[in-house]
C-alpha cells in the first residue's frame, strides 16, 4: 500500500509542480499572485476538448500540446494587455481583487458557454486505463505521461531561466525592475512573456490532466490553492523550490486520501498552507524573493 501511495503522490505532484512554476514565474517577475491560475488550467482543459473534436476520437491528446500552448499564450496576452498590466505595482489589494474577479468570471463564463455538466475527453480506453506493473504496484500510464511531461517542462524552464538572455532578463526584472530597466532590459516585454508562459504552463497542465480528471467549470478551482501552497512551500519565485514543493504536496495529498479520506486530503492541503505561512514563511528551503 505505502509504495502505491508514494507513487500516486509523486505522479500527481509532478503536475502540481508545473502549475506552481507558472504561478511562481508570474509572481517572481511582476510581484502578482494570480488567484485565477487554476482557472487558466480549466481554460486549458476546455481548449483541449475543443481542439480534440477536430481529431479522430481515440487519439492521444498529447499531440495537442503545441496548439494548446499557442492558444494559451494568446489568451494570456489578451488577459495581460487588458487587465493585469494596469495593476502591476499598484499594491496588493488591487491585484487580489482583479485576479479573483477574473477567476470568478472565467468559472462562470465557462459554465455559460459549456454548461455545468462534467465531461470527459473521449480518449481510447487503452490509454485511459493503461498501466504498467512495477513489482506489486501499478502506475497509470496517463499519470506517468503527465508526470514526465510536467517535469521535463520544469527542467526546460529552469534551463531557459539560467542559460538564455531572455531568462536572465527575467531574473534581473524579478530582482529589481528599475535597475533592470536601466540596464536596457525591456521590462514590458519580460512581463508579457512571463505572464504568457505562466498561462501556458497552466494550460498544458490542464491538457495533461484531461485523460485523468473530469472537465467542468470548477475543475480548476482546487488547483489555485494547491499551486499557492506549493509556491509558498518552495519559497515564492524559486523554480526548484516549486518543483520539490509540488512533489511534497502530491505526497501529502495522496497519504491523507489513502489513509484517511478524500475530503480530508483537501483539508490537509489547506492546513499545510497555513502551517507553512505561520512557521516557514520563507519556504522550506529559504531564499527566494518574498516580502511579508
Amino acid at each position: 500500500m505505502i509504495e502505491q501511495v508514494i507513487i500516486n503522490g509523486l505522479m500527481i505532484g509532478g503536475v502540481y509542480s508545473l502549475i506552481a512554476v507558472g504561478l511562481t514565474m508570474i509572481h517572481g517577475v511582476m510581484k502578482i499572485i494570480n488567484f485565477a491560475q487554476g482557472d487558466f488550467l480549466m481554460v486549458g482543459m476546455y481548449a483541449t476538448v475543443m481542439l480534440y473534436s477536430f481529431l479522430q476520437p481515440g487519439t492521444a491528446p498529447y499531440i495537442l500540446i503545441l496548439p494548446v500552448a499557442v492558444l494559451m499564450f494568446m489568451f494570456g496576452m489578451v488577459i495581460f494587455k487588458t487587465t493585469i498590466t494596469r495593476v502591476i505595482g499598484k499594491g496588493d489589494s488591487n491585484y487580489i481583487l482583479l485576479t479573483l474577479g477574473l477567476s470568478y468570471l472565467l468559472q462562470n463564463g465557462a459554465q455559460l458557454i459549456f454548461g455545468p455538466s462534467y465531461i470527459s475527453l473521449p480518449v481510447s480506453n487503452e490509454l485511459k486505463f493503461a498501466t504498467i506493473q512495477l513489482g506489486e504496484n501499478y502506475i497509470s500510464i496517463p499519470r506517468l505521461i503527465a508526470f514526465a511531461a510536467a517535469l521535463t517542462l520544469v527542467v526546460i524552464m529552469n534551463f531557459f531561466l539560467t542559460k538564455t538572455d531572455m531568462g536572465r532578463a527575467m531574473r534581473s526584472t524579478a530582482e529589481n525592475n528599475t535597475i533592470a530597466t536601466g540596464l536596457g532590459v525591456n521590462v514590458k516585454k519580460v512581463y508579457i512573456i512571463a505572464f504568457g508562459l505562466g498561462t501556458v504552463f497552466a494550460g498544458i497542465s490542464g491538457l495533461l490532466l484531461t485523460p485523468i480528471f473530469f472537465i467542468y467549470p470548477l475543475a480548476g478551482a482546487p488547483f489555485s490553492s494547491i499551486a499557492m501552497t506549493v509556491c509558498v512551500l518552495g519559497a515564492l519565485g524559486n523554480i526548484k523550490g516549486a518543483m520539490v514543493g509540488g512533489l511534497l504536496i502530491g505526497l501529502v495529498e495522496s497519504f491523507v486520501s489513502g489513509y484517511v479520506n478524500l475530503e480530508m486530503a483537501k483539508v490537509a492541503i489547506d492546513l499545510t498552507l497555513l502551517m507553512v505561512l505561520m512557521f516557514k514563511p520563507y519556504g522550506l528551503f529559504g531564499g527566494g524573493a518574498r516580502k511579508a
Partner: protein
Amino acid sequence: MNKSLNLSGYVKRYFPVIAFIAACALVPLFIKKSYIQRVFIEVFFFAAMGSAWNILGGFAKQTSWASPAFFCIGAYSALLMDKNFGLSPWISIILGIILAGVLAIVIGLPTLKLRGVFFSIATISCTSIVRQILFNTPNLTGGAQGLTLKMSSGNDLWRLRFDSEIPFFYISLIWMMLVVLIAAMLSKSRLGWYLKAIREDEDAAQSLGIRTYHMKLRAFVISAMLLAVTGAFYSFKIGYIDPNSSASHDLAVRIAVTAILGGMGTIWGPVLGAFICVPMLEISNYYLSDFGGGGAGFAIYGLAMVLVVLLRPNGIISLFQKKKAGGANG
C-alpha cells in the same frame, strides 16, 4: 440660539441619511409584492455584511475572505439552539457573537501576522477548512443537507417566525442601520484612524507606535461578530442553512464585492454596493438563467469586480463624492 443653530446644522448634515431611512421604511407601504420586499431584505442584509467586511477590508485594506466562516457560526449556532433546545434566536445570537469572536481570534492570531496577499490566501484556506468541517459533521450540522428551520404559522417575534415579509423587512433595515452606525462611529474613533494608518503604510504606522497587529485583530473580531449576527438573522429569514450556499467562496466574493463595488473604506459605499449588486444578481438570474449553461449572474459579478478595479478603484460612490467636492470648491 446656539443650540437651535446646532440642531439645524445637524438636520442639514444628516438630511440625506434621514431621508434615505424614511424612504426605505416606507417601501412596504407602496410595494406589496412579497418578492420585491424579499429583494429589499436581501439588500439590507448584504449592506450590513458589506459594512462589516469593510471594517477590516476597507478601512485597513486587509482583504479577508473568511467572512462566510463567521456568517456560518452565527447561522448555525442560532439554528442549532432553536432546533435542539427551542432557544430564542435573540439569546442564541449572543452565543453566536461570542463564538464568532473566539473564531476570529483563532483565525486572526496566526493569519493577521501575514501581510497583504498572504493574509488573503490564508483566509481563503480558513473558509474552506470550515466548509469541510461542516460537511463532515453530519450528526451535528446536518452535513451537506444542512439545517432547516421548523416553520410555524402566526407571528412570533421572540422566535423570529413571521407570516409576512414585513417584520423581517424592518428587522433587516434596523440591523443595517445599526451596522452602518457602528462602522461610522468606528471610522471616527481612535481605532478607525489606526486602521486607516495601516491602510496607508503598515510599517510607518508601526514605527509611530501603533500596535498594528492588535488593531487589525480588534477590527477582525468586531467585523466577525457583526457578520455572525447577520448570519443568524439571515438564516431565520430564509429558513435553512447549508454549507454549499453559506460556507462557500461565492458568499465571500458576494460580501466583498458589495463593499468594493460601492466603495471600500467609505461608510455608505457598502450600502450603495448592496443596492446595486443584489438587484443585479436577481435581475440576471431572472432573465438570464436559461441563457447558455447558466451562471450568467455570477459571471456579471466577476466582470463587475474586474471593471471596478480597473476603472473606479474607489468604487461607485466616488462618482458622487467627486461631484460634491467640485460643488464645494466651485
